[in-house]
């Protein structure tokens, strides 16, 4: 067994693991019961899925081109910045539209202020 066979195995492992996690994340979208629970699929499982695939891509191209390839790190960085923001916006939209949540959910979503639903102008932060 030489080095490249082992490396190929590692790359294959990360690809398969990434595929499985991305699949489970998407399965969550179909399988979970309400809007807020469905949000968890794409923010969590998919992040790791894409992370695994990017790691294997980094390993593969670094070996093929025999120099370190790091652009994938940038994709990870952008993903970590954008995923929470889009999840937050989606959740907020859900609150605005007063989407139903499963009855066994404990706690209550807060009542939104009139500024937050756009019935009153938002005051300037520096006044």
């Amino acid at each position, binding site marked *: 067994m030489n080095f490249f066979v082992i490396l190929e195995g590692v790359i294959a492992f990360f690809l398969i693991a990434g595929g499985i996690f991305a699949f489970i994340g998407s399965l969550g979208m179909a*399988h*979970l019961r309400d809007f807020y629970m469905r949000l968890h699929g794409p923010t969590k499982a998919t*992040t790791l899925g894409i992370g695994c695939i990017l790691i294997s891509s980094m390993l593969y191209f670094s070996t093929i081109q025999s120099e370190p390839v*790091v652009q994938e790190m940038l994709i990870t960085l952008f993903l970590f910045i954008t995923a*929470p923001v889009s*999840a937050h916006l989606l959740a907020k939209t859900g*609150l605005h539209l007063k989407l139903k949540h499963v009855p*066994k959910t*404990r706690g*209550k979503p807060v009542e939104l202020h009139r500024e937050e639903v756009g019935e009153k102008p938002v005051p300037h932060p520096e006044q």
Partner: protein
Amino acid sequence: MITPRRWLPLPLLSILLLVVWLLMARSIAPGQILLGGGLALLIPLATYRFWDAQPHVARPGLLLRFVARVLGDILIANIQVAWLIINPRQRMRPAFVVYPLMLEERFTITLLASTISLTPGTVSANLRMDGKSLLIHTLDMEDEDALIETIRERYERPLKEIYEC
């Protein structure tokens, strides 16, 4: 730490932009450095009015430890959530939790909210207009106080030490 100047309002952003540009171009040829450096100067000049004042990083060492811990937590969170989704016998206990914030700067609150969204079974859903509390939705919660305590000790306190001490 470089001090901000008139022509360099956000030094850290400029450095980040230059580094990202060079990584994307995958070269450190003088031409790329010139082009990236030009953009790194112009973009902050054009956009700095939209930015909040960035709090000073008081302890960079702690910041690195915080990032490492969050990455570890993301790994565990992913496996937990994946297991919750595929395990048919698991009864999920979703909940809304109002989390009282200790942080005051908007920048650090953003960091905390993003961290919460990326880690164990929680998504931050709404920040109150007064900036005093954050609504969190969790996929599977045992005890409300325990959850608040975990977030407080694991994420919020380190962030407060890093940025606001």
